[in-house]
C-alpha cells in the first residue's frame, strides 16, 4: 500500500507542489482539450471573454464542447442549459462517493472543492483519498492547477483560433484515457472491483452505442455498483 501511495502522489516536497505534481497528467489533457474548445468557441461566435468565462464558471469539458455546437446551431438558451445539466448530472455520483471523506471539512471548503470536481479531478482524488486523506493544500492544489490549465488552454485556443495546430501530433489526445487506465488499475483491490468495473464498462459501451450517450456513465456506474452491493453486501469490515 505505501508503495502505491508513493507512486500516485509525489515523493516529497511542499503539499502544494505535491498537488501540482499529481495534477500533471490532467494538465496535459486539459491544455489540449481546452485548446480545441477555445478554437471551437470562437468559431461558434463566442467572444474571447465569453469563451474564457465559460471555462471559469462552468468548467466541464464535454458539456462545454457540446454547448459550443449548440451555440453555433442557434439553439435557444434553455435548451443549452438543460443539455448541460443532463451531460453533467453524472457528477452527482462522484460528489456522493467522495462525501464520506469530507466529514471534518468546513461548509465553504466543501463548496470550494465541489466547484472544481470534474471527471479527471475525481479520478485523481478517489484513488488518492482511498490511500489516506492528503493535506487540504494538496487537494486544492490539484483542483486549482487543473482548472488553471483548462482556462489557459481555452484562452490559447480562443486566441489562436483560425491558425489551427494539430494537437494529435504529440499523442496528447490519449493523455486522459491513459490517466483513467492508471487510476482505475490502482483502485482495483480484489476480484469484486474487477467484476464491478468490467460490468460498468461494458454496460456503458452498450448504452453509448445504442444512443444513450449522455446518461450512460451515470446509469452504468449506478447499476454496476448496485450489482456489487447485491453480490457482496459488506465490502470489508
Amino acid at each position, binding site marked *: 500500500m505505501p508503495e502505491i501511495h508513493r507512486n500516485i502522489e509525489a515523493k516529497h516536497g511542499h503539499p502544494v507542489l505535491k498537488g501540482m505534481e499529481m495534477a500533471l497528467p490532467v494538465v496535459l489533457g486539459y491544455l489540449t482539450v481546452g485548446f480545441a474548445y477555445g478554437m471551437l468557441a470562437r468559431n461558434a461566435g463566442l467572444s474571447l471573454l465569453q469563451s474564457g468565462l*465559460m471555462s471559469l464558471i462552468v468548467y466541464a469539458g464535454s458539456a462545454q464542447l457540446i454547448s459550443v455546437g449548440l451555440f453555433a446551431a442557434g439553439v435557444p438558451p434553455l435548451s443549452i442549459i438543460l443539455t448541460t445539466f443532463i451531460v453533467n448530472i453524472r457528477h452527482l*455520483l*462522484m*460528489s456522493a462517493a467522495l462525501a464520506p471523506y469530507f466529514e471534518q471539512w468546513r461548509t465553504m471548503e466543501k463548496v470550494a472543492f465541489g*466547484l472544481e470536481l470534474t471527471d479527471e479531478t475525481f479520478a485523481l482524488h478517489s484513488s488518492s483519498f482511498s490511500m489516506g486523506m492528503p493535506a487540504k493544500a494538496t487537494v486544492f492544489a490539484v483542483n486549482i492547477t487543473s482548472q488553471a490549465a483548462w482556462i489557459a488552454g481555452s484562452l490559447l485556443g480562443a486566441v489562436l483560433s483560425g491558425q489551427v495546430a494539430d494537437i494529435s501530433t504529440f499523442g496528447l489526445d490519449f*493523455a486522459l484515457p*491513459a490517466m483513467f487506465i492508471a487510476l482505475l488499475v490502482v483502485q482495483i483491490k480484489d476480484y469484486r472491483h474487477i467484476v464491478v468495473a468490467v460490468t460498468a*464498462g461494458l454496460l456503458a459501451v452498450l448504452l453509448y452505442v445504442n444512443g444513450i450517450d449522455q446518461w450512460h456513465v451515470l446509469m*452504468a456506474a449506478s447499476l454496476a455498483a448496485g450489482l456489487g452491493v447485491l453480490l457482496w453486501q459488506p*465490502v470489508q469490515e
Partner: protein
Amino acid sequence: MKIVLTLVGMALVTIAPRVLPLLLLSTRKLPGWLRTWLEYIPVAVLAAMLLPALMTMDGSINLASDNMFLWISIPCFVVAWRTRSLLGTVGTGLLLVMAARWLGW
C-alpha cells in the same frame, strides 16, 4: 448579454450536482448498503468513462486493428498494473501513440 446569462445558467446546473451531495451526505450516518454502494462507485465510474473511449469509434463498437487507442491501451494496462505509476502509464501511452502515428497507424 443573452450568451452571458446562458453561461450563468449552465454554471448553476453544473454546480448543483457537484456540490449538493458533498454537503448533504458528508456529515450524515449512511446505511451500510449505501456506504458499500458508494465504495464501488469510483471503479464503476472510471470504467464507465474509459471503456466507451477505448472500444468505440464514431458511435459504434470497433475492436478492429484500426482502433489504435484500444490496442495501445493494452500495454498501458500492463504498465499500470506492474508499476502502479500514473506518470509512467501516461508517458507510455503518449509515446506509443506518437510512435504509432509516426509509423502511419
